[in-house]
């Protein structure tokens, strides 16, 4: 069987075989560049302004988190992985803690599961808001309409950070999930605040849609950076990227964790697989997350928020040997944690902890998608992939 691959460019293109109309220009795009969303580098071979071949280089933010986790105890890992996906830290914490809970067989109380779900959904809104702002800035430039959308999105995101600050006392890196539950219970008056904030943001999302619903935005996004469903699956793309390519797959519904099996999560899909589809999917997901969070926040059942006793020393948490893989759906897709138990310090540290970063998979799509597009489109495509380098490089 030979599968024809019309849906993707050849990432291993031999440039000696390519006949350009002009000299190939080797353009370094990154690692420091206004629109690489962190430190990421793509070397583009340009024929005129058309990309012939794109060679991405990752690893400019490789902080050795996995090695560090082998030296830390289970309780100490949570605040470290916060820094991985620094746009949605709640999910990082939850991912590793779910893995450790699976290793130890810890039950998470229902109230903690509710809290985890609610903060996750609110965090998803915040993450998508930040994406929308930066994506608009990629399209509109630092001096231009894009910046306006960026500023507005950040204004709304700050409101969500205020919510979290109220809940956890931290603005950015929360360290609120712990083995067997949560560290912070819902404070008084928080539910009303959530309603007020999310209600406000829901209106704003409509506003953004109205602002971005104009011909230039459509011209810049429609048909740009098409990722076919086949390519998306092969590359392991997940989350909004996969759903924008028309694959109906969402871990919240298909492999439920927390209390998602009791919820009716609408999975937002779109056809087309281009930047416009990815934009639409994310905006709809924002609405859906707002709906879920608002529906849940009034119905949190009473009970304890942590299934384990508070530990006095980090080394007290020990887990058995074994290997687990736990995945959850972050704003960027499937964030998996693969843990091999039984490491240093008499089983107080994992032997090996591997984080499956959705952003790295997303970035690996670039050499397949970029060729044939111009430099302007490259910016739009890179932005639409929503990569977070802290997570991709770890």
């Amino acid at each position: 069987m030979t599968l024809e691959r019309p849906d993707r460019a050849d990432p291993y293109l031999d440039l000696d075989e390519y006949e350009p109309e002009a000299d190939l220009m080797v353009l370094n795009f990154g690692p420091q560049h206004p629109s690489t969303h962190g430190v990421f580098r793509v070397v583009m071979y340009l024929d005129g302004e058309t990309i012939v071949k794109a060679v991405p280089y990752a690893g400019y933010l490789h902080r050795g988190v996995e090695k560090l986790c082998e030296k830390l105890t289970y309780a100490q890992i949570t605040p470290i992985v916060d820094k991985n996906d620094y746009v949605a830290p709640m999910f990082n914490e939850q991912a590793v803690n779910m893995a450790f809970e699976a290793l130890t067989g810890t039950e998470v109380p229902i109230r903690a599961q509710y809290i985890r779900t609610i903060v996750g959904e609110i965090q998803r809104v915040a993450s998508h808001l930040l994406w929308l702002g930066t994506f608009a800035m990629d399209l509109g430039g630092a001096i231009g309409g894009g910046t306006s959308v960026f500023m507005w999105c950040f204004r709304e995101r700050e409101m969500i950070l205020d919510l979290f600050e109220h809940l956890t006392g931290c603005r950015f890196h929360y360290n609120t999930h712990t083995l067997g539950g949560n560290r912070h219970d819902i404070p008084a008056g928080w539910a009303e605040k959530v309603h007020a904030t999310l209600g406000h943001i829901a209106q704003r999302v409509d506003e953004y849609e109205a602002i971005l619903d104009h011909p230039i935005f459509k011209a810049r996004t429609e048909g740009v950076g098409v990722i076919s469903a086949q390519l998306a699956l092969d590359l392991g793309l997940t989350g909004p990227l996969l759903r924008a390519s028309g694959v109906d797959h969402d871990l919240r519904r298909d492999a439920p964790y927390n209390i998602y099996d009791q919820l009716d999560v609408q999975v937002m899909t779109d056809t087309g697989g281009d930047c416009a589809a990815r934009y639409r999917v994310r905006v709809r997901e924002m609405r859906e997350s707002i709906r879920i969070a608002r529906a849940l926040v009034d119905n949190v059942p009473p009970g304890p928020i942590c299934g384990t006793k508070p530990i006095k020393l980090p080394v007290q948490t020990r887990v058995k040997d074994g290997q687990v893989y736990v995945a959850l759906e972050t704003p960027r897709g499937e964030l998996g944690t693969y843990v091999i138990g039984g490491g240093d310090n008499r089983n107080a540290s994992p032997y090996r902890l591997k984080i499956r970063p959705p952003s790295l998979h997303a970035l690996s799509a670039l050499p397949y998608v970029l060729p044939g597009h111009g430099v302007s489109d490259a910016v739009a495509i890179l932005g639409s992939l929503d990569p977070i380098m802290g997570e991709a490089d770890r």
Partner: protein
Amino acid sequence: MEQLAFGLVAAVLLYSALRVVSEDNLVHTVLWLGVTLATTAAAYVLLHAPFLAAIQIILYTGGALTLMLFGVMLTQRVESVEVPNAAAGQGRAAIVVALLFGVIAAAVVKTPGLPSSPPVDVPVRALGRSFLTTHLLAFEVLSVLLLTAMVGAIVLARKADPAPAPTPKPAPKAHDAHGEAHP
């Protein structure tokens, strides 16, 4: 005053023209040509032909210069042109230039009353009127000329078929085996 200005413009004109032929760098050559053309426009202003000066700027300095710049950028090596033997052909060129100069000088001398007649403003209106009435045929033929130029340029400049985005080439061995040929 007028004499002084004219002398200045003529000096710049001559100098820039000299630089055009003596410059090694092709881009510099074109830019010096731009100076030459712009100075010519200044000379037109001094000769009471401001409309012609504006046309000179728009058409030659703006249009033709861009064309030349882009033409230069199509050549392989931009930053310097290696002329193997700079002295070659200079003698022949001198003869041709001298002949040309002779012809022009003769024309100037032969034209009656030129040195003394004061420059006269030609109204733009009259210019337009002349090609719309007297020289109508030439005017309309010009459009055909422009059409021919455009079509010809496009045919010559474009390759037979514009190379599209790189088509997927057969991937390396390991890549398209797809499991079948795998040991």
